[in-house]
């Protein structure tokens, strides 16, 4: 890779990676770890992303937002490809993403490590910090979140489910 290509790739990565998740506007697709690869060549830019959930309805909006962001950054010819392997995990989120989610009132997922999905129900209240919370529904406002309520401060809150 030439120095010019490397610099162009870095710029394209920065532009694509800054796209906000349409359903969780406080985090970017780079924060979430769903941006997998960015390649710049003579034909333009190829961006590779992976879905959080197979049926995630935000994918089309994310693809469109990536193309728009790259066009604005000087890359009008951008293709967005989708890969499944390796399957996305909440462990792919950056530490910054967890902090941003918590600051926005969404309890971040616990690290899950390898193996089967742990169905732990404990989530700390993002508002008052109490661990005394209960699940209202395992499926919240989007596929990736569960709805909880804090028994200490009585506020309901979203919890990003470990996956």
């Amino acid at each position, binding site marked *: 890779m030439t120095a010019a290509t490397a610099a162009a790739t870095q710029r394209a990565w920065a532009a694509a990676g800054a796209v906000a998740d349409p359903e969780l506007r406080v985090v970017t697709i780079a924060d979430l770890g769903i941006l997998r690869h960015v390649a710049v060549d003579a034909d333009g830019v190829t961006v590779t992303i992976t879905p959080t959930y197979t*049926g995630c309805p935000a994918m089309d909006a994310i693809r469109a937002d990536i193309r728009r962001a790259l066009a604005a950054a000087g890359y009008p010819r951008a293709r967005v490809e989708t890969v*499944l392997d390796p399957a996305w995990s909440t462990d792919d989120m950056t530490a910054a993403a967890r902090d941003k989610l918590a600051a926005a009132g969404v309890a971040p997922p616990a690290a899950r490590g390898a193996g089967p999905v742990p169905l732990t129900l404990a989530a700390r209240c993002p508002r008052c910090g109490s661990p005394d919370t209960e699940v209202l529904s395992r499926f919240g406002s*989007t*596929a990736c979140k569960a709805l909880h309520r804090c028994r200490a401060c009585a506020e309901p809150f979203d919890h990003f489910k470990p996956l």
Partner: protein
Amino acid sequence: MSRPGLFDYLLALGDDALVTAQRLGEWYASSPAMEEDIALANIALDQLGAARLLLSYAAEVPDTALPARTGGPLPVAARPLDEDALAYRRDDRQFRNALLTELPHGDFAHVVTRLLLLAAYQVPLYDRLAAADDPRLAAIAAKTRKEVAYHLDHAATWVRRLGDGTAESHGRAQAAVDALWPYTHELFAPLAGGPIDPATLRADWERTVTAVLAEATLARPADGWAPGGGRDGLHTEHLSYLLAEMQSLHRAHPGARW
């Protein structure tokens, strides 16, 4: 990958997910609580996501590997194949879903019991497929297995709550288990073209389901009548009505997009 029968195998798995998504969607705004509406819609969305991946893969299986199917060839107009052509342009005889998934919904106990019986099969199915010697299918399964684990958990929670609840909820849950049980046998019938034998999933399924039924104080029905035919395109009349509703827009306006 183009094993003989792969196309039909992918249709079987994809159609199970697609028909399940459509049935769950019917319950939107009819659940006991708004949270449950959202939960069932989210589960439907996961199943739809799995269906899209599986049918997209099926659409790319080379024509030469397409076997003669009971339901006859796909309409010429449906070519070239893609996920939409497979979902919206096939007739009932060309669907390969298990009968369990197409039965019309009764009450809420019926909804969550069916989901339990199906998810308890999909969890070991996708677990095994994730390690299969077919990279594309393995990648799909590695993704979907994490989602169906939540479906199973959700359904099991409800079945326990209804079974071990009031006399009314117990009676309804037992009636749902009794009504659906015969249709579970088809899930484990031989299915050509896939990397695993469905019969080998039965022990896992049985362990999961009997444990939940026991906690729910529900009786495991005796095995007897075992209706089948869905994998060969021989369905109940209920699928035809479901497809009529699901496909009407696409058939009236071919290629329609949002």
